[in-house]
């Protein structure tokens, strides 16, 4: 809608957490930040990554919802769970390969990034993209992002599961898809206190 797309480039993130603060000001989930913010290789590095929901074409969170509470709109936005339906079962939290849904315990409801629906549905940018100083989170037209060195991709492989998304990840130009094996990123394997696999 409106010709804009969301692009996430973790290599640009400077860890300022402006997006977290701005997200809290969004009217659709006021006071609660839906940004997923994480550090990468915290032991060796200060690099961080902020990312939003990827809004999968076939959202796993919605497919596993036993209460039919998670809906994908006609514009491709996967919304937070519907409050009257959500039973706070955590199925979506466990199923999402990106780890996006957040269980709000006081409200007994799953909430997630809905790309500031009150703003993007009328052509405005999401709060996080408006404040990101390094444009690690950007909401621009495809022709604007084409100037960057990295190329956008929206194809992910988690093992044998292929996921295509609405939000794009900036990847090295030669990579058409991003393949992840979650086990490779489990730090426990190399931790001093955890016995290594035989």
């Amino acid at each position, binding site marked *: 809608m409106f010709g804009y797309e969301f692009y996430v480039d973790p290599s640009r993130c400077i860890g300022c957490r402006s997006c977290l603060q701005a997200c809290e000001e969004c009217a659709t989930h006021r006071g609660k930040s839906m940004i997923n913010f994480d550090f990468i290789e915290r032991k060796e590095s200060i690099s961080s990554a902020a990312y939003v929901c990827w809004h999968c074409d*076939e*959202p796993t969170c*919605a*497919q596993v919802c036993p209460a*039919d509470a*998670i*809906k*994908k*709109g*006609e514009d491709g936005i996967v919304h937070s769970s519907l409050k009257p339906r959500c039973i706070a079962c955590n199925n979506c939290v466990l199923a999402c390969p990106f780890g996006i849904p957040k269980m709000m315990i006081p409200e007994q409801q799953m909430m997630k990034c809905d790309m500031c629906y009150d703003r993007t549905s009328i052509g405005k940018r999401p709060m996080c993209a408006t404040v990101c100083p390094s444009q690690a989170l950007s909401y621009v037209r495809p022709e604007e992002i084409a100037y960057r060195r990295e190329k956008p991709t929206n194809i992910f492989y988690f093992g044998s599961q292929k996921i295509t998304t609405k939000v794009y990840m900036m990847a090295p130009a030669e990579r058409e898809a991003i393949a992840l094996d979650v086990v490779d990123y489990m730090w426990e394997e190399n931790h001093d206190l955890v016995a290594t696999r035989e």
Partner: protein
Amino acid sequence: MTWLRRGSSEPLWKEEFPVRTADERYVTRRQLTKFLVLTSLGMFVGNIWILIRSIFYKAPIYGHQPVAQLGEIPVGGVKLFSYPSKDDHCILIRTAEDEYVGYSQKCTHHGELCGEHAVILGLILRRSMQSVRRLDL
């Protein structure tokens, strides 16, 4: 109800609970009103049909059939028989020296004795000894 569905590779529950809002089927107030009116009309026509059928209905007449000889059943004793067809199982009970009662085994009329001229499945159930004799039971 699979014959009502259009050809689909998706299971029914996925169609009933779609992930996409565009695939949801909403029932408008006007659709519900149409459904109620048409259903009421159908029930009205059905009742008229039942009424017409009951006016022209003729109860079948079943013939007489010997069931037991007098004195064959002791007082308090029973005899099983079929009437009017062999699939309609009945029971004849001698409740007193001069009283016989009959029940259908499928419909015992809530367990009550049926009075004079009461008919269940075409069987005259309760008769005095004279009537029994007259019916050649």
